[in-house]
């Protein structure tokens, strides 16, 4: 099964630098060993730029509406993510909870409903001077009826060579959030988000500039009913 492993960032850690450089260094040192251990089960993983760099795209009555800033002004946000290919939920929990990131961050695990689509672009990700963007679909109600339209949208972007990866996620009811307390893993039912909206799909596009990425987001079927957050990836 394919799972989205979301790293939950908090304003406490990222914006005012409370997390010490020692802690970050220790995490980075441990990362290669973890990566080696889970490489068959981790298809992809990247850190995102802060939510403040995002644009929100909606289409109403055929008119695209674009505003700046994060979708939700919450203390916690998606700071990065990995795509996992695991035997079952326990397997995915094991991958996530053994990650050095789990020392400092909560992690949400959610299944993709129809698996994840990965194009050739995903393998070459980050190697050129490409300009990838993550499109996050924020929804209030699941819209299974739009699934075929989303598939066609992904087909079209793949054909144009702009699609990297993505897919539809199981509802908030299928999410599990992992935290650690005193070194022990603690599981909680439900997503990390506390907003009425939940993340219903993620899609990564590449080879476009910000303006074009926003335009692509406006063609996403969910842009017509809900909202798409367009967020750049973290770059050194």
């Amino acid at each position, binding site marked *: *099964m394919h799972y989205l492993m979301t790293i939950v960032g908090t304003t406490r850690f990222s914006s005012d630098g409370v997390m010490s450089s020692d802690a970050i260094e220790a995490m980075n040192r441990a990362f290669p060993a973890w990566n080696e251990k889970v490489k068959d089960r981790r298809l992809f993983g990247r850190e995102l730029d802060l939510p403040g760099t995002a644009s929100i795209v909606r289409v109403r009555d055929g008119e695209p509406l674009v505003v700046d800033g994060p979708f939700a002004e919450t203390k916690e946000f998606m700071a990065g993510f990995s795509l996992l290919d695991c035997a079952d*939920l*326990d397997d995915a929990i094991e991958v996530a909870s053994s990650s050095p990131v789990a020392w400092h961050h909560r992690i949400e695990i959610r299944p993709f409903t129809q698996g994840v689509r990965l194009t050739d672009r995903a393998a070459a990700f980050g190697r050129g001077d490409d300009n990838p963007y993550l499109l996050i679909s924020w929804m209030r109600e699941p819209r299974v009826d739009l699934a075929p339209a989303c598939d066609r949208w992904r087909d079209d972007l793949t054909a144009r060579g702009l699609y990297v990866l993505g897919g539809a996620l*199981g509802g908030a*009811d299928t999410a*599990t959030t992992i935290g650690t307390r005193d070194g022990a893993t603690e599981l909680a*039912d*439900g997503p990390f988000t506390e907003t009425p909206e939940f993340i219903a799909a993620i899609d990564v596009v590449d080879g476009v500039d910000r303006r074009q990425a926003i335009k692509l987001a406006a063609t996403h079927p969910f842009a017509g009913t809900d909202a798409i957050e367009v967020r750049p990836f973290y770059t050194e």
Partner: protein
Amino acid sequence: MNAQHALDAAFRESWGRIVAALIRRTGNWDLAEECAQEAFVEAVRKWPADGVPQRPIAWLTTVAGNRAIDRLRREARGAQLLEQIGHEADVETMFDEVEEIEDDRLRLIFTCCHPALPMDGRVALTLRSLIGLTTAEIARAFLVPEATVAKRLTRTKSKIAAAGIAYRVPPAHLLPERTAGVLAVLYLMFNEGYSASSGEELIRVGLCDDAIRLARSLRQLMPDEPEVAGALALMLLQHSRRRARLDDNGELVTLEDQERARWDRAEIDEALELLESALRRGAAGPYQLQAAIAACHARAATAAETDWPQVAGLYALLEAQAPSPVVRLNRAVAVAMAGDLDAGLAMVDELGTDPRMARYYLLDAARADMLRRRGDPRGAADAYRRALPLAPSEAERRFLQRRITEL
């Protein structure tokens, strides 16, 4: 044996087994429950007239299995599944050896109690699929609307399927942690029943028996897990006091004032034996420690003979493993009872600053009792009065009121 008795016994004995086996073979929880249900309906119809079959459980299992096959054949996806399982000939016998596979029930317990599921859903699903309580019965036991329970069950089952929670006994490295998770569900179930002891709440009291039955099964299935034995011993020791906890007027009687002759000796003996064999295995976990504390009370012929220093020591060990303000409060009480009232009161005062205890009536009730013992009736009365509005049940409020009058 008459048909009704045979049916009741078979239901208790085999509901969980049949459901567990059908889930393993079909992966379909609803189908498993419905077919088990139909098998019992069939038994209700046939046994009184035809007589109880020689092997009732095998009979029920076969009927449930046949129903499952019939249903699967009618659905396209079911037919596919049957094809995967094997040839037609194998299909006819696929449910035959159901009763021999104990592992199925373990799989079911661990899946129902998976920590990624919501707690209320774990409890409801365990009662539904392992005990066979109906949605309406679970609703009455937890004092919530039936629709709420139905929703919890649906949502929990759908998470198992959608999130990929495997139907299996967890691998060895996860077993201790997951076993603790299962015990937490059983103990919550037990406490829910234990906290409701009045006549009109019989269905809730039944939860205690259900939790003990499940703990017994778990103990049979995992004889080498000392914490399982510990949890079973703990429940048995608490359960053994059920007839002494309320007086003839239905008023709550404290442990100190309980008529110990009314305690259930058979349950106490069973629990003490379980506990001793578990403790011999070394490092005691939280359930064994709690059972050991309950055992100190069970062993004392009168309240005055309670080995309070031992109880206080056990609470200190428990606090080291599972720190919580409630454990600390109990430890303070034991310290005071062991003779050091000042130390006990100091611990209680310190707990008074813990926001988690702000609305916990037993904190003031404990302080009141210590002040009373120290010869400060006015201070005790004040503390009882502070506890009064926080007490959650009528019986507890009456108890506090009585204490105030007695001062």
